[in-house]
């Protein structure tokens, strides 16, 4: 769509790579994914991408980062740095969405509902930690759909 996500995914990825093994080791549930099953993000139509990206940024800001505080200050610093990048990207994308009236097609609405259903299938802390552990899935999709 007309809106571009201005966010340094390379910087976020570097931060996530530093904590990935630790975060993913806190998620013992192999049989559930928040973002990639049953419907992978890659099936989202390009016209819907702007809307679902904004939904996902909001999802991470409102439902993930705030529930991912750990006992490890290094992890917490990395998580809050990633959260700040998401906050600013969401603000810019939100402004652009309003100006360009980004369409929210049925498919992306359905896809996002599935993500919320997956999230609500676990208790909040587990769901948030699992979502955080899937950040590379989100970044892979965002970079591919540029």
């Amino acid at each position, binding site marked *: 769509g007309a809106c571009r996500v201005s966010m340094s*995914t*390379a910087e976020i*990825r*570097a931060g996530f*790579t530093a904590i990935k*093994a630790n975060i*993913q*080791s806190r998620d013992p*549930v*192999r*049989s*559930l*994914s928040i973002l*990639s*099953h049953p419907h*992978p993000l*890659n099936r989202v139509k390009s016209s819907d991408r702007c809307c679902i990206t904004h939904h996902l940024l909001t999802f991470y800001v409102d439902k993930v980062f705030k529930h991912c505080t750990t006992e490890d200050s290094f992890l917490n610093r990395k998580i809050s740095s990633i959260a700040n990048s998401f906050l600013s990207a969401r603000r810019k994308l939100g402004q652009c969405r309003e100006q360009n009236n980004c369409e929210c097609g049925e498919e992306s609405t359905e896809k996002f509902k599935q993500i919320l259903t997956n999230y609500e299938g676990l208790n909040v802390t587990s769901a948030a930690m699992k979502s955080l*552990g899937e950040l*590379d*899935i989100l*970044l*892979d999709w965002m*970079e591919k759909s540029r």
Partner: protein
Amino acid sequence: SGELYCSLPNPRNVRFESINMKNVLHWSSPEGTGNGVLYRVKYSVYGVGKWIRKPECRNINRTWCDLSSETSDYEEQYYASVKAFLNGMCSEWVETTRFNPLTDTKIDPPMVSVSSTDRSISIILAVPEKWKRSPEEESISLLQVYPGLQYNVSVLNKKTKKRWFFSISNNTLVVPWLEPGTAYCVSAQIHVTTPLLDSGFSKEHCIATLKDK
């Protein structure tokens, strides 16, 4: 078979080693066990969770198992697990960390070909292919997997030992204004910015510019 006691020490350092998305599971034998240990392997797709046995790696005595075919969809992520058996005893299943082929593979250096005139060198680079099941299968260049891929190229004047570095996006480079009749050595590296992946540098390819006419 009789009841197995899972008191055998676990396999150690169970991990994927991946080059150009040829994804091979490796591990070390359990501590204190000599020869005769056999292993079984299973894997699962993250988010699906069903463990699938790998028949070709059932009761093997080697400490690796090629799971490239099973993990070839690089839009998925995977776990694999290994169990050891010896003299009627077994270990626990030991799992890898979550494996993401897209970010966790290593990339080979590019293939380099060079040609020269009297005052310039032309360099053509080729990206390695993604692993494929058989020669007949359609080739996928890693350029398709990592569209933002770039190259770092080093050119060394063998006489003066002066070296230049270039960062380029397309796969050809012409280096002009060189000295005739001089040997130059070229080496190149692949650089993917995100996810951050760098190949090693290729071995040097040396060529001499033609002598002055």
